[in-house]
């Protein structure tokens, strides 16, 4: 007995973008206010899980043709590269630097290497969560 999922599908199409935007906002807010890579990654996974609930596994795989194992690997590589970058400047492992740059649209922005490390964390969290859920949920 397949029920009519019209309402949840229509609502998901709208809410997915809101959760996605909120996840990006939380990710960038992590330096001064609560938030960061881990929570942002979990929010992103929750948005994809909402898609999985509203549609089925095959449809979501067509929408987002991403291999989440590769996402995890890329995230780990980014984090390791950020930490290992300090070796070339003759400072201890994991030393972070930051500087101010003038970016055309944003103006004077502080860029900190911790943000790249957090990007790695974000990708690892999304990859691991989605791998677990697809392993459990997929029956193929």
């Amino acid at each position: 007995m397949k029920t009519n999922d019209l309402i949840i599908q229509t609502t998901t199409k709208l809410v997915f973008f809101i959760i996605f935007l909120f996840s990006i906002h939380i990710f960038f807010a992590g330096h001064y206010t609560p938030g960061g890579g881990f929570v942002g990654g979990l929010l992103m996974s929750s948005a994809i899980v909402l898609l999985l609930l509203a549609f089925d596994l095959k449809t979501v795989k067509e929408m987002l043709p991403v291999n989440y194992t590769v996402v995890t690997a890329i995230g780990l590589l980014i984090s390791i590269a950020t930490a290992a970058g300090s070796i070339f400047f003759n400072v201890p492992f994991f030393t972070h630097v930051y500087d101010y740059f003038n970016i055309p649209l944003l103006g004077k922005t502080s860029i900190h290497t911790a943000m790249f490390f957090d990007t790695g964390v974000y990708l690892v969290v999304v990859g691991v969560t989605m791998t677990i859920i697809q392993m459990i949920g997929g029956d193929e």
Partner: protein
Amino acid sequence: MAFQILLNVIIAVTWMFLSVSFKPTTFIVGYLLGLFMLFLLRKSFSSRFYLDQVWAVIKLIILFFKELTLSNISVLLLIIKPKMQIRPAIFAMPTVLEKDWEITLLSSLITLTPGTMVIAISDDNKTLYIHTLDLDDVDEAIDSIRDTFEKAILEVSRS
């Protein structure tokens, strides 16, 4: 609707370029000018003037808050009665709405007003199954929903 809004934004941006000032105030002035031009040429578009649609949305919001208040009061009166004199029922309501978002909006509005709740939609998206707390007469309940929400949503989506 979308085309007219896009045109209005393009007119506003053109106005910003013409007056060589990129401030929000210039954009607003250009937008209002574009609105006036679109109003003059409203007969030339295939769809209706988009402010009508915006007005219909505002009317729908006002109607929703009115219904919310009234039905809240009626449910409250049912609750504080010493005897439970309710007649719960589930009835089917055929709908004339076709688009996905219209049906979703109608179902949400029905569910958000206390006393009635959409529990299922038929597979061909033509019938809503509604559970109600206190049913006097099926036709009366269907007509009340028809006259309020369905009419207002049709008013919004009319091209």
